[in-house]
């Protein structure tokens, strides 16, 4: 088959890019080479639209052992240990096939972590669905949640947190972002490098099928229509059992007993064998020769093109020392896994592939990696919409605040997520100290006193209204979620989900989000060590709301000092740290009760946030806090209600709250002003807490007491907590079944 610019276009390349390929090679590429270029130069692999912007992020710090560029980032947490973590999107596959899409998303991020030698100990996920009223939403939610659980539970990594939200902006493009954190000895981090001329390249794990080959671009290709059925890209199906074996086998290979045999290791993720071999050679400045006929195949009639581009799951590529092949083979055999030598490391600087004695690929590595296109795409701020800003005086005040609070507690974005996380094994591993249901998850680091806390956050409504402030707010919320759990924020990963970068407005949103991410991470001293960009989240020309999901990791020196969000005991004093403001822009209240999405966004001051976190962390370390919960979506009233009803066992507890304020009651109760945390303490600790707040210049107000079985706020709200909990807990299930009225 002769390759022309048309073939290039059908592979998703531009005419310009195709010309660059011919120029780099001095000839037309073979069809296999074109396939390699098209995936390596895809947005997904090359970051061609985002790379110039990502460079501005803070990525260094005393704890950073590995920043962006490897399979995942790594931070030193002392005691000779490092945490390795990353977040990845699997949006499109999950929309096509929610169960398998979400499952393979989890499988992929797990491989990114254990490929570095780290044992995964926690999974989190950030999910965004369309409106609950959209007919497809319940199906997608059920499938995605079951898929995440199906994979994570089976492989035995606890799923301990995440977020779920619903917005019509995702009706045709849901987001499934999966996060994994693992632990490794800090001097035993493995990297994906193909070093040592003559070293064998080995393939381990599942056989290769035609899974997910080249997605949509290939479908459009006339040449492949002839025998289309057999060539059609198929949906990837996850096999968590094989991945469990692969995980154990790889970690055993990387253990001191075997690691001398291993030179480099990389998972075969997106773009499969192609990207793993190219990237490994690229990082080492070497070359790789592959004999594609030696790749273990699942199906008959596969072509070299299929083999290079297959995205079959549960596979890894290894470079081992010459002579170690048998040892490695035996180790994998113990775990009932195949291992095959498929190539050799060279110093050619080329990727060369043969098939039945014929050379089908001979490409210099550099143009595939560092030489990939780099775009400075135009960015334009969209014109502000008429009447975009909320005027408080035009907003009618509700009559019954108790009723409004109940409505909010039942609304899709504020109700309990228990229906979701009870489908996840949150215990396996035996170190889940704070499981889902509090602000952040806390997992003990085995063999130490320490704990690591994790949270994923993004309020995409805020990001739609103002991507810079929205992103800063997401980072701040993440930091607060860690602090209220007793953990000091130490690092960040992120998944930037946006529309098409070819649209100047989207590019503007993207740049704003990066700027917000940079400024906020600098303020909190939390380097960005890994991340993922997912562009082209749009359907029929409509982009999703900008959704920069922030994954933040925190450290507790003594895990027994962890704090949870729910009130603990009758008679405890309830304290608000931070100041209430009259801000309703972008709030759930405005959306759910008044059906409006508008700014101005709540004010955010990173210095205030930093001081607030300092106070809370000091109080947690001194053991003063019986509970702590940040004020986020739903505002102060919802936060306080959650403190009463979110305990996992035992009956809910009541509270009597008095708020002195000149603010409009709805803004006071439901405004989402930043910089606020609700804590409860024993009365005798109030003085010490006041000293700490004073030291950090944090406003502190005693607002009530834990008591009884009713939830009372002045004369505005008086509700029985049992009923509140019942409605809040069951709302998601009822909503998905279309039975919220019952």
């Amino acid at each position, binding site marked *: 088959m002769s390759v022309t610019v048309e073939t290039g276009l059908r592979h998703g390349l531009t005419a310009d890019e195709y010309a660059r390929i011919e120029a780099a090679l001095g000839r037309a590429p073979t069809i296999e080479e074109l396939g390699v270029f098209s995936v390596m130069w895809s947005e997904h692999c090359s970051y061609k639209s985002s790379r110039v912007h990502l460079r501005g992020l803070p990525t260094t710090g005393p704890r950073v052992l590995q920043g962006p560029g490897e399979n995942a980032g790594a931070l030193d947490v002392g005691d000779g240990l490092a945490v390795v973590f990353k977040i990845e999107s699997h949006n499109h596959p999950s929309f096509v096939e929610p169960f398998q899409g979400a499952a393979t998303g989890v499988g992929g991020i797990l491989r990114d972590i254990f490929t570095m030698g780290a044992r995964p100990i926690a999974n989190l996920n950030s999910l965004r669905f369309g409106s609950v009223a959209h007919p497809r939403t319940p199906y997608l939610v059920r499938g995605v949640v079951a898929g995440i659980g199906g994979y994570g539970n089976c492989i035995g990594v606890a799923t301990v947190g995440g977020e779920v939200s619903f917005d019509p902006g995702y009706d045709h493009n849901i987001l499934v972002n999966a996060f994994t954190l693992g632990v490794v000895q800090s001097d035993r981090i493995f990297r994906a490098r193909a070093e040592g001329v003559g070293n064998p390249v080995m393939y381990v794990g599942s056989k290769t099928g035609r899974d997910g080959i080249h997605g949509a671009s290939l479908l459009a290709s006339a040449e492949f229509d002839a025998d289309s059925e057999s060539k059609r890209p198929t949906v990837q199906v996850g096999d*968590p059992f094989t991945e469990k074996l692969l995980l154990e086998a790889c970690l055993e290979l990387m253990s001191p007993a075997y690691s001398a045999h291993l030179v480099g290791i990389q998972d075969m993720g997106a773009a499969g064998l192609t990207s793993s071999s190219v990237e490994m050679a690229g990082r080492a400045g070497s070359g790789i020769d592959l004999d594609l006929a030696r790749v273990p195949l699942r199906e008959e009639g596969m072509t070299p093109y299929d083999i290079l581009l297959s995205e079959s799951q549960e596979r890894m590529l290894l470079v081992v020392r010459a002579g170690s092949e048998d040892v490695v083979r035996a180790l994998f055999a113990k775990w009932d896994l195949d291992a095959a030598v498929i190539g050799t490391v060279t110093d050619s600087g080329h990727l060369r592939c043969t098939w039945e004695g014929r050379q089908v690929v001979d490409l210099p590595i550099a143009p595939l990696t560092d030489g990939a296109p780099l775009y400075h795409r135009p960015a334009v701020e969209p014109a502000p919409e008429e009447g975009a800003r909320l005027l408080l005086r035009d907003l009618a005040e509700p009559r019954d605040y108790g009723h409004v609070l109940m409505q909010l507690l039942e609304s899709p974005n504020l109700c309990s997520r228990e229906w979701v996380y009870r489908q996840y094994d949150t*215990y*396996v591993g*035996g170190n889940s100290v704070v499981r889902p249901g509090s602000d952040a998850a806390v997992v003990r680091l085995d063999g130490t006193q320490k704990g690591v806390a994790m949270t994923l956050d993004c309020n995409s409504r805020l990001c739609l209204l103002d991507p810079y402030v929205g992103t800063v707010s997401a980072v701040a919320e993440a930091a607060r979620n860690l602090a209220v759990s007793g953990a000091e924020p130490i690092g960040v990963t992120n998944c930037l989900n946006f529309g098409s970068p070819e649209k100047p407005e989207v590019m503007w949103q993207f740049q704003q989000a990066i700027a917000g991410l940079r400024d906020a991470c600098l303020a909190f001293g939390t380097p960005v060590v890994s991340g993922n960009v997912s562009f082209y989240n749009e359907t029929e020309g409509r982009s999703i709301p900008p959704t920069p999901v922030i994954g933040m990791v925190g450290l507790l020196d003594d895990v027994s000092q962890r704090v949870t969000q729910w009130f603990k005991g009758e008679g405890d004093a309830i304290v608000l740290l931070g100041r209430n403001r009259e801000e309703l822009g972008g709030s759930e209240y405005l959306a759910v009760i008044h059906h409006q999405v508008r700014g101005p966004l709540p004010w955010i001051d990173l210095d205030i946030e930093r001081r607030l976190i300092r106070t809370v962390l000091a109080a947690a370390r001194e053991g003063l806090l019986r509970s702590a919960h940040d004020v986020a979506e739903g505002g102060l009233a919802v936060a306080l209600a959650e403190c009463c009803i979110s305990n996992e066992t035992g009956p809910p507890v009541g509270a009597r709250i008095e708020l002195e304020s000149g603010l409009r009651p709805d803004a006071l109760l439901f405004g989402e002003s930043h910089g606020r945390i609700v804590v409860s303490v024993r009365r005798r600790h109030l003085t010490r807490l006041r000293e700490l707040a004073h030291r950090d210049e944090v406003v502190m107000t005693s607002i009530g007491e834990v008591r009884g079985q009713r939830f009372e706020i002045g004369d505005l709200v008086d509700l029985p907590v049992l009923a509140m909990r019942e409605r809040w807990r069951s709302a998601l299930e009822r909503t998905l079944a279309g039975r919220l009225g019952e």
Partner: protein
Amino acid sequence: MKWGVITFPGSLDDVQAAHVLEDLLGESVVRLWHKDTALDGLDCVVLPGGFSYGDYLRCGAMARFSPIMRAVGEFAAAGRVVIGICNGFQILCEAGLLPGALIRNRGLAFLCQSVHVRVEDADTLFTNRCRRGDVLEIPVKHGEGCYVADEETLHTLDAGRQIVLRYTDGEGRVTPEANPNGSLAAIAGIRSASGNVFGMMPHPEHACERLVGGEDGRKIFLSVIAAAGATAEPVAAKVVSGP
């Protein structure tokens, strides 16, 4: 006493079971690989939770053919103590070492939550550190934990005092809501007619530390230890009960 903890391909809670026995309870533990064939010198064998063989086909269906299972059968026949937790319980049922079967949860979904179980009989190897009627709080995490058996088997279980644990609410009442998976007769754990083989769906090994999951699960392991301390001989014969 000397414990063995088996690792099948896909076992997950083997690590936790061994950790509890060794690090928290100070017992001696041998880690066993599913291809091992001997259980010499052990007093008790634990078949842990997890997804052996991915739970493909049926939970426990393939693991029961692991080489070690022949030894487990002989071990049980010799009156030594065998405990199956969750997936281990499923394997024991598939292997015919315990009656009945475990099928999809009533709600069809995987369910992870803390539940209450009532001790139906305190005169067993596995519950002698409890009192009859005690309510323990222990997590479950399974997709296929609904215990089923035919009428006759259920009757035999009941008559033979083989039902050791039932799902209840916090006050020890059997209610439909307190039964997480729809198990017949609210069965959460049973023992063999000989009394020495025990299977339960909840995970006692995940309830042995105050910081993670509570401490009620300890009572199960401590009971086995206590029973072994009472006699050096295989203890089954002593506590056999029923018709």
